[in-house]
């Protein structure tokens, strides 16, 4: 036995001593050896597997719940006759147009309300009220006001995005570190410099949260928007499938929504890495584990 250990034993009646690192060192188990993208794919793949097994064993009624292979075949059929591209294209155009407009409007309003007292007085309550109103409640009114063309669809998406962007960017601007603003003032920074170098970069993390929420709201709005009289878009594909009891097409549309959501999320994560690289600068763009 070592001297140190003996000393610990004879050191009574002192406090009980324990080895605080033993058994707590991190070990790399088999799980952590799997590459991260694969670990992340396990959830979606698991759902797909459960679906396949369910259909194969007859647990799922294949008339109401066609197996993935059948949905895949349907996708291929719609893809080769150009229908899928047309519908997805129409939907994507709506989402992108609505999102771009919504981001622009949201940012401009957030800057006005965030930087000036007048802007805040005029805008903030209005925007908070609009946030409280589910914008799908506007759908029937929008149809009456704007007809059944692209107009009300874009407006529906735009308002959702604009509100999400406004709420978050505004609170980001208001939350900018006052100490940094003072610092810029002692350097005689112009107002424009203050906005572009201090306030907007400071609000960027919140803006990106707004963008993430805005994008999911955009796809949600799309579903409602495409319930308005239309003959194009994945929402139309979905409602037509429902009327014709084409469950394979319904499931396909759900998969498309899922993929769209995942891609939007990935896009925002990418933007975060690019625009907020200063947060974990010492790890560089390679990113944290």
């Amino acid at each position, binding site marked *: 036995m070592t001297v140190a250990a003996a000393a610990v034993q004879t050191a009574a009646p002192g406090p009980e001593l324990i080895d605080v690192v033993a058994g707590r060192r991190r070990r790399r188990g088999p799980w952590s050896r799997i590459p991260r993208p694969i670990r992340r794919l396990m959830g979606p793949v698991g759902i797909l597997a459960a679906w396949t097994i369910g259909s194969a064993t007859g647990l799922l009624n294949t008339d109401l719940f066609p197996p993935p292979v059948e949905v895949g075949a349907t996708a291929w059929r719609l893809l080769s006759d150009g229908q899928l591209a047309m519908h997805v294209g129409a939907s994507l155009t709506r989402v992108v147009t609505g999102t771009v407009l919504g981001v622009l409007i949201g940012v401009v309003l957030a800057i006005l309300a965030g930087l000036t007292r007048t802007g805040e007085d005029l805008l903030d309550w209005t925007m908070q009220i609009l946030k409280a109103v589910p914008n799908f409640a506007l759908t029937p009114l929008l149809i009456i006001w704007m007809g059944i063309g692209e107009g009300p669809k874009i407006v529906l998406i735009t308002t959702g995005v604009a509100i999400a962007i406004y709420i978050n960017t505004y609170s980001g601007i208001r939350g900018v570190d006052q100490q940094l603003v*003072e610092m*810029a003032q*002692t*350097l005689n920074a112009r107002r424009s410099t203050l906005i572009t170098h201090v306030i907007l970069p400071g609000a960027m993390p919140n803006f990106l949260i707004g963008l993430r929420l805005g994008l999911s709201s955009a796809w949600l709005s799309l579903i409602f928007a495409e319930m308005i009289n239309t003959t194009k878009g994945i929402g139309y594909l979905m409602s037509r499938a429902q009327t014709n009891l084409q469950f394979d097409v319904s499931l396909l549309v759900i998969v498309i929504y899922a993929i769209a959501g995942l891609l939007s999320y990935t896009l925002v994560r990418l933007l975060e890495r690019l625009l907020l690289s*200063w*947060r974990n600068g010492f790890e560089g763009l390679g990113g944290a584990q």
Partner: protein
Amino acid sequence: MSSRVVQIRGLGRAFGPQQVLDGVDLDIADGEFVAMLGRSGSGKSTLLRVLAGLDSQVTGSVVAPRSRAVVFQNPRLLPWRRALANVVFALRDGGPDAPSRSSRALAALAEVGLTDKARAWPLSLSGGEAQRVALARALVREPDLLLLDEPFGALDALTRLKMYRLLHELWARRRMAVLHVTHDVDEAILLADRVVVLSEGRISLDRRVELPFPRSRSDEGFDELRRTLLAELGVKEEVGHDRSR
């Protein structure tokens, strides 16, 4: 001899019913290093903020150079700009044209010994390094008056010693006037030409430090000045009591 760069007369500042500054008179000569001591809440930071142009709700008159720069206790670097860009930021408005900005900023970083950190993100810098970038950002404007608000307050004791030396070198080279607000008596004596104590809203003691440079705590006269200043601040230095008594 040298001209006055700061002239404060009857400066008053109240926060609600509390009169934080109450008739401060203070002159600082060109190239003079003045340390200002005071207890927490004595108004020394308020006075510095007035000189920095951050607070104008005051009574009395304050004259100071147009070209001033501040270093705060917290480095206040823009975290989304690299170290060099933070220094360049100080030259953006009203400074030189863009190409010469970055060479001047690099020179300022070199002066504080951080050339190799020019491309580092502020969040990856140590406390001492970040404060040196803040110092470079202040110096790059070639101020006639440098305002320091407890700039080393958040640094560890070892880093602080290095910073004293750096600050003294920079001042000895550039000879701008400095107002250094601190609550560290030793720091004040080590660095300053003159030490003033702010208490009850006015200057209660104004003492020239006659010790020659380089200074150290073991210098003759250091201890005596230190005791005088501590007494003025209302502090006794003994720690611990004799338990056997």
